[in-house]
């Protein structure tokens, strides 16, 4: 059984570079250029509509939560606000980081900054980390965003439904960066000239949090923190629920997103919160396609993909037994069958993968 080193500075990362798994050529389903141009086309309309709805709901839920505070009747409104702050902002961070949500670059940048703050992800650091996630998706030692490592840290994943590790790590890293330091792992993927920006943003965030905490102390109430900061904990569950589905239980160290990513059909409310990232194979194969065109992209290429899971429940029914088995045997993973209309998986990488 293989022991894996997921750190960005370890042996597995070095070996991935050596054998050509880093920055490799990935499989893409064939789509005529004309159709692809249509799918990639940008517009501001859908994201402006969704952003107005998002912020209107956040303001409305928070206003009712504040009005009813400290009664328990305020709880449902805080929970709804929290999901929008601690989960919907994850997908906004993601899409605006790619620059695909809006056609206007400034709109992407504004929402990206707000969403990064809500998710406690330094906007500079995480732009580079996510670029690496797309270059080397689930390549051990290269991808800094692998959620379900092997053996899976199930306690950590469950705790992250309440933001316990991710958010606290985010705040700890914010303080670390604000002190003028860049972690060696960050330095492995952030260019030197970008690193001062990491420190500048961290210091601005520390000032904002200091203001909120001072207000809370002055009021003798946690109410200001219910609006800013704590929703990253009590509203995190939805983004973890959907995020775990993206790659968990699937192959590592392959260059075909059909082997390491998962598409799941989910309900319309979750799709709004998640901004269609349930079409995850499609997103990784063609990251230029905006979230609002992913259903159309899915329709165009599903003949070449494994059948999607039909619900969140069905996806977890597939994932949980695999993760449990990986606790004892970490080389185990799931390979989904392709439809008869699909091009086969790349055999050269099948041969290199551990046997099930």
């Amino acid at each position, binding site marked *: 059984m293989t022991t894996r080193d997921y750190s960005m500075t370890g042996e597995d990362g070095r070996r991935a570079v050596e054998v050509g798994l880093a*920055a490799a050529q990935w499989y893409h389903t064939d789509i005529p*250029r004309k159709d*692809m*141009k249509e799918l*990639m*086309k*940008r517009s501001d309309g859908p994201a402006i509509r969704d952003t107005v709805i998002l912020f209107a709901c956040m303001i409305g839920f928070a206003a009712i939560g504040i009005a009813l505070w400290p009664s328990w009747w305020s709880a449902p409104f805080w929970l709804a606000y929290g999901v929008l702050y601690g989960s919907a902002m994850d997908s906004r961070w993601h899409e605006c980081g*790619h*620059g*695909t949500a809006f*056609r206007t*670059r400034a709109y992407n940048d504004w929402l990206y900054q707000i969403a990064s703050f809500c998710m406690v992800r330094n906007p500079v650091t995480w*732009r*580079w980390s996510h*670029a690496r996630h*797309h*270059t080397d998706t689930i390549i051990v030692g290269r991808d800094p965003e692998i959620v379900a490592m092997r053996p899976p840290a199930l306690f950590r994943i469950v705790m992250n439904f309440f933001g316990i590790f991710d958010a606290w790590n985010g705040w700890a890293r914010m303080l670390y960066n604000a002190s003028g330091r860049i972690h060696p792992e960050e330095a492995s993927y952030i*260019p030197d*000239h*970008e690193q001062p920006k990491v420190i500048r943003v961290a210091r601005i965030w520390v000032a904002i949090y200091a203001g909120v905490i001072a207000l809370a102390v002055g009021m003798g109430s946690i109410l200001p923190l219910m609006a800013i900061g704590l929703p990253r904990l009590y509203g995190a569950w939805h983004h973890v629920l959907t995020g775990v589905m993206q790659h968990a239980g699937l192959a590592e160290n392959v260059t075909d997103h059909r082997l390491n990513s998962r598409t799941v059909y989910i309900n319309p409310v979750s799709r709004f919160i998640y901004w269609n990232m349930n079409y995850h194979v499609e997103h990784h194969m*063609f*990251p*230029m396609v905006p979230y609002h065109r992913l259903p159309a992209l899915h329709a165009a290429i599903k003949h070449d993909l494994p059948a999607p899971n039909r619900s969140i429940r069905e996806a977890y029914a597939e994932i949980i037994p695999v993760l449990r088995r990986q606790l004892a045997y970490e080389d185990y993973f799931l390979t989904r069958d392709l439809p008869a209309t699909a091009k086969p998986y790349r055999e050269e990488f099948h041969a290199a993968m551990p046997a099930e």
Partner: protein
Amino acid sequence: MSQWIDACGADEIDEEDLIRFDHKGRTFAIYHSPDGEFFCTDGLCTHEQVHLEDGLVMEYEIECPKHNATFDYRTGEALRAPACVNLNTYKVKVEGGRVWIEI
């Protein structure tokens, strides 16, 4: 010593689009702008050497298909991270319905 090379027909590139052109081990991207002009840059994104041929042309910008790095293809200027290094650009002329690049 640079020389003019016949790269493609002007009608082979849609407006607001690009094609790939390979020559003697080098690879280029040739663009047709919305106002009918032609431009040429290196073919590979300066971030991670992904070919720009599958990228998205919007007005005067080319967006890399892998990480959404963006360049002004008229000047080669890198406009959006993760690209930090400009693209090289090459002179272009159109003669007799053919696009020529000076490389």
